[in-house]
């Protein structure tokens, strides 16, 4: 067990991936390809996969701010997702407030939930933190399921599928794809900004050695709370966008452990604590799971999930630094370190 086999989670100098806060040609190329895919008139079933990849890429980046940068591995992020989705949907369907405004209110409420979770888990580390976030999301889920006068209970909430700009409902998938891409790019930019900022360095310090960070004058509790609140707010925005695209909220899905796992899984596969990792994770996993389900779902019951989960185990065991780490290794091969 040499030190080299343990991949460092901190963003390193990478051939394709630049130092903190800078943008590489690889990332610009990826963005251009994404834009080209949005404007090219592709079949709308593929557009479906594309926009989901963007949305989940953004959500993975949002999770990564807490999980990758601040070391707060949360399995309760679907609570923030659900809170954001419910807030904008309730405001628009019940009070006629346009989602363009509701999204921000949802983000604010999600941020408050995030801060509360950070305070509850102030002293917890490792598995204790993970399981507490899971329990927190369960409390929110059961609350949403039973507070039916507000959330519509188990019947969920429906948004009328009538296209309107004010209602943020579009007829064309390309419009949604553009919206989701914008979300992805925005969260990516925030992540990049964070990497270069003082706050970002505080977070790395807290993650890598909390005691030392505290001694150096960083307030760990404040840092953790701010990171989780920011991550929650961005996740809440993703939730609102999800609601506007699917137009139906089901409490047993939008706040569920499986969704929380999904948020954490994408950065883990792509590469934790890097800006590009979660994006790569989403671009790989989201299309893959959709395609597996559509091609294998009907031939043998459950087979697609068997293959999918088997692949995940293999990836986790053999590429623990994620795709970003694997790519990095590949591009460095033969070069002096």
């Amino acid at each position, binding site marked *: 067990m040499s030190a080299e086999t343990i991949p460092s989670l901190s963003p390193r100098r990478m051939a394709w991936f630049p130092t903190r806060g800078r943008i590489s040609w690889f990332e610009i190329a990826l963005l251009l390809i994404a834009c080209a895919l949005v404007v090219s008139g592709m079949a709308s079933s593929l557009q479906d996969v594309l926009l989901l990849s963007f949305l989940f890429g953004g959500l993975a980046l949002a999770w990564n701010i807490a999980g990758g940068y601040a070391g707060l591995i949360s399995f309760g992020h679907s609570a923030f997702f659900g809170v954001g989705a419910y807030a904008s949907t309730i405001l628009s369907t019940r009070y006629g407030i346009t989602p363009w405004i509701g999204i921000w209110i949802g983000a604010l409420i999600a941020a408050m939930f995030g801060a509360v979770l950070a305070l509850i888990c102030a002293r917890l580390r490792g598995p204790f933190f993970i399981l507490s976030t899971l329990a927190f999301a369960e409390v929110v889920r059961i609350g949403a399921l039973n507070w039916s006068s507000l959330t519509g209970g*188990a019947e969920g909430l429906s948004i009328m*599928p009538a296209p309107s700009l004010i209602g943020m409902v579009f007829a064309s998938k390309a419009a949604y794809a553009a919206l989701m891409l914008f979300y992805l790019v925005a969260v990516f930019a925030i992540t990049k900004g964070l990497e270069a900022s003082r706050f970002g360095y505080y977070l790395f310090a807290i993650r890598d050695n909390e005691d030392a960070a505290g001694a150096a004058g960083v307030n760990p509790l404040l840092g953790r709370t701010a990171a989780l609140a920011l991550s929650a707010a961005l996740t809440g925005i993703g939730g609102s966008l999800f609601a506007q695209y*699917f137009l139906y909220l089901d409490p047993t*899905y939008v706040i569920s452990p499986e969704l929380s796992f999904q948020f954490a899984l994408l950065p883990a596969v792509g590469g934790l604590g890097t800006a590009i990792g979660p994006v790569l994770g989403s671009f790989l996993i989201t299309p893959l799971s959709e395609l597996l389900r559509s091609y294998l*779902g009907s031939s043998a019951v459950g087979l697609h999930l068997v293959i999918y989960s088997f692949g995940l185990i293999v990836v986790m065991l053999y590429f623990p630094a994620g795709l970003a780490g694997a790519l990095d290794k590949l591009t460095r091969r033969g070069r002096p370190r």
Partner: protein
Amino acid sequence: MRLVFRSCAFVASFLLALTFGAQAQEPIKIGVLLPFTGPLAKNGIENWEAMQIARDMINERGGVNGRKIEYVQGDATNPNAAISETERLITKDGVKITTGSFASPIAIAVSQAAERHGVFHWETTGAAEIITRRGFKYTFQVGAPARKYGQAAVDIVLDDLAKRLKKPAADVKLALLWENRAFGKSVGDGIRTYSQAKGIKLVYDEGYDQTATDMTPIVQKLKDVAPDVLIAISFPNDAILFQRKAKELDFNVAAFIGVSAGYSAPDLRDSIGDSVAGIFVADFPPKVNEGVLKPAVKEVAREFYKRYEAKLKRAPAGHAAAGFSAVWALFTEVLPKAKTYEPDELREIALKLDLPEGSLVNGSGIKFTNFDWPDDPKDAGQNLRASIGVWQWTKTGNEQVFPPELATHEPAMVPLPNWSNR
């Protein structure tokens, strides 16, 4: 010369056959959205078997207007997978008609996606009231809305069981237990409203989570209020847990009415044995008194039951029979009248349907609302003639007992013997 003529004729006939054949072969694609994986898979797969029988039967009879029916499957494990899968079938496979989806939350999700694309959705079993109350144009709920399950359960108490219990209907102590997902809540709401309208007060009225692992508190509370009749809306796993706990704590009622999925599942007998006998179930009728069926339907019904039993080695549950009935109605009453098979045309045909009770295999008729229903003018596509009856588990099988016109048998074992005598 002759050879040339012959070969020309041959080629011509071959081409003719090819084009004709191609025309005849062009199938009608129907998207079937059911939960094939996950916790609801069992019911989804039963429904799928029933729907496949309907497809095979219609194709053996030459299809619809000479076109075969072809299914495209979508795995609607949960509402969000349902939306993705519906989108996929519509945009990738070009499906213009969807059907399915067994459970209410999935039905809500599938119809949402179908409506967005203006695709005709023929819902077979989803029951939550909200399905038809969102102002959708292309969603048709052929199965009964949740309210009807509740009404059937309350009606049998008022019209029949009260007499057998020798009590005035207003004095019957009625308790209501519902699982708090979309279906249970919707049926529970219906029962509450309906029994209030009938002047009956519920002595107990609580929801629970279907993943509950301990039923003691619920059964204990019911024991404390000692109802005469309990109406319970459950899924299979919690229904079994409840019955076992009722036995353990010796909780007895004079009549027990289960609603749908949990109590109609054939495995209930495997799980709780013969003590299942005497339990009433308000649900789609698994098999109705043949007398109410139209003669042509009678034949279809016999064939369906024969094939289903041959294939699955047991009689279909009510929801499977309902799934068959609904798609069979689609194949025989809606599609044959179509020319373009476009959703707008299908919608017109569906709205014109006026089939009396007994037109479908499970005793239902069809008459859809179209923003013209006095109870809720926002309602469209709800089938006002869907039949929900009450049947009863017996020592050997089950018998339809209510309403009288569908019944194959009289209600028996009222009051229900205590656990010590079951």
